[in-house]
């Protein structure tokens, strides 16, 4: 399931809900992306999504990833709007019988979410705002799976 949220969210509460009642799972990997202050140079991150379109794209990608890695389940929550340093931007959890699949699927989903998912990202710093494109590292990470 994918959820976009304007409000801050609590990664731990999501992990608790995701782990509950799994007696054949074995492995839950999770990733939480937090907004960095960058020593004060990036005070606010602003993320724009295209409601409906963005969730569909993420859902379609995650369903394909779940099949590729043999996941039992997955959960993605992504923040939109204005995000302060230290707040969670993204939470991804993956469940599988064994840990290799859970780790790899979580890693794979994050690489795509950080580089190719339909978001537009603006950083508001002391010198004004600027739109952010994927970094070379993001592109390299995503290409590992192509």
């Amino acid at each position, binding site marked *: 399931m994918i959820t976009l949220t304007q409000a801050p969210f609590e990664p731990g509460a999501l992990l608790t809900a995701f782990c509950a009642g799994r007696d054949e799972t074995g492995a839950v990997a999770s990733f939480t992306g937090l907004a960095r202050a960058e020593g004060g140079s990036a005070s606010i991150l602003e993320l724009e999504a295209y409601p409906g379109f963005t969730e569909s794209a993420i859902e379609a990608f995650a369903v394909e990833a779940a099949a590729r890695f043999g996941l039992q389940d997955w959960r993605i929550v992504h923040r939109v709007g204005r995000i302060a340093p230290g707040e969670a931007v993204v939470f991804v959890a993956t469940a599988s019988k064994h840990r290799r699949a859970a780790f790899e699927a979580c890693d794979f989903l994050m690489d795509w979410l950080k580089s190719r998912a339909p978001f537009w990202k*603006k950083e508001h710093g002391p010198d004004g705002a600027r739109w952010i494109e994927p970094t070379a590292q993001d592109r390299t990470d995503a290409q590992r799976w192509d």
Partner: protein
Amino acid sequence: MARVLLFGRLADQAGWREREVEAGSLAALRASIADDDAALAQALEGPGVQVAVDKALVRGEAVLAAATEVAFLPPMSGG
């Protein structure tokens, strides 16, 4: 009437995010926008800008029915 949505730097450039435009095709829609703001129309054809009609990506030309949503998407940054 098509509902036009702009995202990211395109919305910043245009000064609006959403507008109703009378147009029966994507070409007519682009022409209508160009009449009003030629620089914006050019940016909408810029490298990496994708077009979604009713939330599905389209390439090239498209016929627009009544109450169609047309979104112009600059290169996606990831989350």
